[in-house]
Every structure is written in structure tokens, then in C-alpha cells.
């Protein structure tokens, strides 16, 4: 479970302080498919980054599975990301010199997993996302949708407690975006992995079972829908 308590984040640009988050208190249950929605500049990405231990809050606390990330060293945060969190980025962020297979393998190399087990997991997840025939392609040999599928595989291959996806469909056309979302939803149900993603896309919100609306760094609406 992820919990944030009175979370603040300011960015300093020159001498001016921009508040990105202004007192966010939310808790997200395991296994959910949660959208953080809002216009650009509302603090979605910032919130996601802080939950993902990529960024530090100015004030407030984040508790992931009972541990307060404020008290973790940068090494311990790296460990937490390594073991429990998968990321999917708006720009896919695959490593260009590695093939689809190798990109997905990367997080497993940082965990203590036998080569055989690694291979099984990678093949199975790539098959799951429909890329069985593309495993030896490099990112520049794949379409955006395919790249994002690799990125999703990379996030899921280590069986993380949660996957954080920052605008996962923003760089994709609507059809592909929909496919990606269906895929994520499917994996969410099948693997019981918690998905938290930021979006300002109505389409994305349609898939979510909970939508947290942000505006100017504050929660303005928190809506839970029946699963379905």
C-alpha cells in the first residue's frame, strides 16, 4: 500500500519558488488501477516521481509498504526501485543499444535471478504483450506502441508491487493508446500488480477504477468507480 501524508513539493527556478504539490494526502490500495488526472502543471508527474522514489518531497511523508522513504538512503531507495517498483515513461525510455529482450532483462540482472528463470520470465512477458516475434529488435526498429509494450514488459518482468506510469499513452495515437491501456488493465487483473498512472487523457481515465483529480498541486476530486 502507498500512503502520502501532507505532501509538499516546491521547485525553485531562479529566485522564484513554484509550488508543485500543496499538501497531498492519499492512500492507494494494492491491486488497484489508479489514474492521477489533471491538466498539465497540476503536479501529477511530481506526485508520481515522489511515490516512485525518483524525487524527494519538500515536506510530508511517503510510506510504501510500511517504510517511510524519507528515512531511506539513496542506495536504499535504489534498492526499493529495483525490487518493488516498475516504471513506464511517456517517452518509453528504452536503452537504445539494447534489444527488446535485453531491455526487459535489465531489471532482472539487478536481482538475484538465475539465467534460466530470467529467460522464462522475459519470453513469457514479451509473449503476453504480443512481442514474441520482436525480441531481438532494437528500439529504433520498433513502432512507438511496440516500444511502450517493451517498456511495460520491463516494468512488469520483475513482478513489482506497483507500476508507475507517467502519461503512458501521451506519445501514442489513440488506437495504440487504447491497446496499451487494455493491456495494462489486463495485466493488472491477471497479476494483481498495483498500477498508478498519470494522465490528462479522458480515454485513460475510462479504464481506471479510481481517479484522483489534481489541480494546482491539490486533490480536487477523488472518485472510485465499481470495477468493470
Amino acid at each position, binding site marked *: 500500500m502507498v500512503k502520502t501524508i501532507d505532501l509538499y513539493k516546491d521547485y525553485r527556478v531562479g529566485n522564484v519558488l513554484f509550488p508543485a504539490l500543496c499538501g497531498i494526502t492519499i492512500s492507494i490500495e494494492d491491486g488497484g488501477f489508479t489514474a492521477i488526472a489533471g491538466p498539465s502543471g497540476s503536479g501529477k508527474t511530481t506526485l508520481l516521481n515522489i511515490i516512485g522514489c*525518483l*524525487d524527494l518531497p519538500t515536506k510530508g511523508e511517503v510510506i510504501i509498504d510500511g517504510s517511510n522513504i524519507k528515512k531511506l538512503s539513496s542506495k536504499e531507495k*535504489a534498492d526499493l*526501485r*529495483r525490487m518493488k517498483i516498475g*516504471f513506464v515513461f511517456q517517452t518509453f525510455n528504452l536503452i*537504445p543499444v539494447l534489444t527488446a529482450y535485453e531491455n526487459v532483462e*535489465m531489471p532482472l540482472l539487478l536481482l538475484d535471478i538465475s539465467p534460466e528463470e530470467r529467460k522464462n520470465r522475459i519470453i513469457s512477458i514479451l509473449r503476453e504483450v504480443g512481442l514474441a516475434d520482436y525480441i531481438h529488435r532494437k528500439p529504433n526498429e520498433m513502432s512507438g506502441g511496440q516500444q511502450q509494450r517493451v517498456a511495460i514488459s*520491463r516494468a512488469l518482468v520483475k513482478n513489482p508491487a506497483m507500476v508507475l506510469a507517467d502519461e503512458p499513452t501521451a506519445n501514442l495515437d489513440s488506437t495504440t493508446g487504447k491497446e496499451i491501456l487494455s493491456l495494462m488493465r489486463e495485466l493488472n487483473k491477471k497479476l494483481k500488480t498495483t498500477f498508478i498512472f498519470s494522465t490528462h487523457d479522458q480515454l485513460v481515465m475510462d479504464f481506471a477504477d479510481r481517479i484522483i483529480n489534481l489541480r494546482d498541486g491539490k486533490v480536487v476530486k477523488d472518485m472510485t468507480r465499481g470495477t468493470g
Partner: protein
Amino acid sequence: MKILILAWRNVFRHTRRTMITAAAISVGLAVMIFMDTMMNGVNNMASRNIIDFETGAIQIFAQGYYREEGVFPLDTIIENPIVIIEKVENIKHVKNIVPRVKFEARLSDGNDELPVLGIGVDVKKEQTVFETPNSVVKGKFLENDEDILIGTGLARDMNLEVGSYLTVITMDRNGTHNAYDFTVCGLINTGHPLLDRNAALISIKAAQRLLAISNGVTELSIKIDNNEKSMKVKQEISEVLGTDYELYTWKELNSSVFEISSGKRMAQFIIVLVVIIIAAVGIINTMLMAVMERIAEIGTLKAIGFSNFNVVKMFMYEGGIIGVFGSILGCFFGLILSLFITVYGIDMSNAVKDMDIIYPIKLIIKGEINYQMILYVFIFGIAVSILATLWPVRSATRLEPVDALRHV
């Protein structure tokens, strides 16, 4: 292991850049190897000249002689060399031992007079220790007591030829001036400036007569089977001869020459340092570019769970891979240059024709390759490349992942 593969691919994102950087390193390393070959050649040549023409591996003097060697003290000489020769001959590692008589002399051709080092040599046995008999380039080696052998340099300076007459003037043990006439029997060219320009060789009998020292000699020179063992053999001989005699190895006798040579080492070291700094700047520049253009990627890797240590490791591997290429290239070119200079040498005779060089070398300098040094240079190149990445990669480790990711 997989990080190494990742690093390998990263290095080949920019093949040209990698190769240029490696080439920069290789130039430095090649210079290092080349200079070492050259220095080894010069040093070994100097050592060989000293051993082969001047001192042998070990010299024996009467106690107290060496301290005043500069004035050739004829009252502290070895009066009865035969006894010592018999004692020393059978000591292990000793191959041969010959006497020499060194004295201060003036050479006169009737017009000019030139101070030289007179050397009386055992005409028959000289070649068992020294190479002088094999260095005759014109005429022949000493045969009788009227012959005098001079260097080609001295012959040029005094306008002498084989067959010319020369008078050797010296003062004998009793303080009497003596002058004997000799005929130039041959010219030698040893490569040792002392012998080629400033010495005259006569038979030991003639020298003993000139100096009125009967059977006495100023020194005994010993050839041994392995020059590296000089010190050990010297001690063994010392034990046999007792305290009436003093012994020195060729290194001890020429410490000043090897001091010059350590000075040269220092100069060599400074040049190498400069070259290495240039190479390091090259790799720092390349790695700095690599880090800057891949900051977002570093962010991604960190998001996946790469620790700073993993990131540093990846870049160190990349530096190391470039270093391996640089080292391979550098050692290859260094070796080629070294082989060239080992086989053909560099002819310095024009450069130093009229210089008074005290360094005992031939004027064609030939290198001598030290293969162990090449191995060190190889490792050194890689080490420098790895260490030079530490500074550029520092900035990558300082960024929070989110700041790195924002760099697109």
C-alpha cells in the same frame, strides 16, 4: 558481466569518437614505449662499452689507489700481479683477468703535443677481457713494444695515419721525465669516446719501462660470465685477496655515468607525464560527452534500480574498453617504432660530431626493447582510461533520478 556488454555497446554508439580517443591514448603509450626502448639501448650500450673497453666487470687496485686515481699514483700499484691473477683465476664465475697500466702521458708528433690517457695492455691476453683488439678499423692491433694504437678521433685531431711516428712523454715513478718513440700500428673505433679520442694504447712492457715500475700494474680487470653477478663475485674475490687490495664493480666505477642516466629517466618521466595528461584529457572529454548526452538514460537506469555504483561501473567499463583499444594500438605502434630503432638505430654522428661527449656510446644509437615495460604500458593505458572516467561520471551520480530523467 551484462553491464560490461551494455558498456561495450555504448562505446560503439560513436565508433569514430571512440577510435579517435583510443588513438590519442595510443600516441602517448607508443611514445612511452619508444622512449623506453631508446633509453634502454643507450644505457645498455654505455654499460657494454664500459665493460668491454674500460673496466671489465670488476677491477682490482692496490689499496688506496682508486681514491687518487685522477693523479695516477705510481706508489700505490699492484707490484706483483701474477700472484693475484693465479688466486683469482679459479674463482667461480671468473672467466679471465688481465692487467693494465694506466698513466698520464703527452703525445707529440714533433709539432703538436696532446695530453692523453696512456694505457699499457697485455698484448696477448687483452682480448680475453676486452674488445679493443676487435675494434681495429685500420692497421692492426699491438704486436711489439714499439707499437702504439690510437683511436680514430685522436688520429683525426693530430693528423695521424698508420705508420706515423709518435713520442710518448711521461714522468716515471722516480719523477724522471721519459720519452719513447712509437709507431702507430693501427686505429681503433670502439664507440667509447675515451678510447677513441683521448687514449693511446701501448704494450704493458713498454708502459712498465716508461714508468719504471718493473712488473707492477695499476689495475687488474676481470671478465665474469654474468655481469649482473658482479657484486657477488666481487665479494668472493675480496675474501680471497684480503685488505691489501680494493675492488670495484663496473657500476661503482661509473656511478657518475649512471647518475646522468637517472637524470635522463626523470626527463623521460616528465615527457611521459605530459603525454599522459594529454591522453587523459582526451578520454575525460569523450566521457564527459558520453555522460552529458546520456543523462536521461542514466535516469532511466536509476529508475530501473541501478545504484550509483552500477552507473559508475558502467562508465568505468566504457573508459576501460576505450583504454584497451588505446593500449593495443599504442603497444602495437610503440613496438613497431621500437623494432625499427632496434634494427636500424638512429645515426647521431652528424649531430654530435664535434661535441665532447662523456657518455660512452657509439654514434649509432640502437634501441633495446624491454617487453616487460610494454606489458606495464598496456596496463597503464587501461588504468589511466578507467581512472580518467571517474571525474566525468561524478556529475551523473550526483543527480536525483528525476533530474536526470528530465534531461531530454
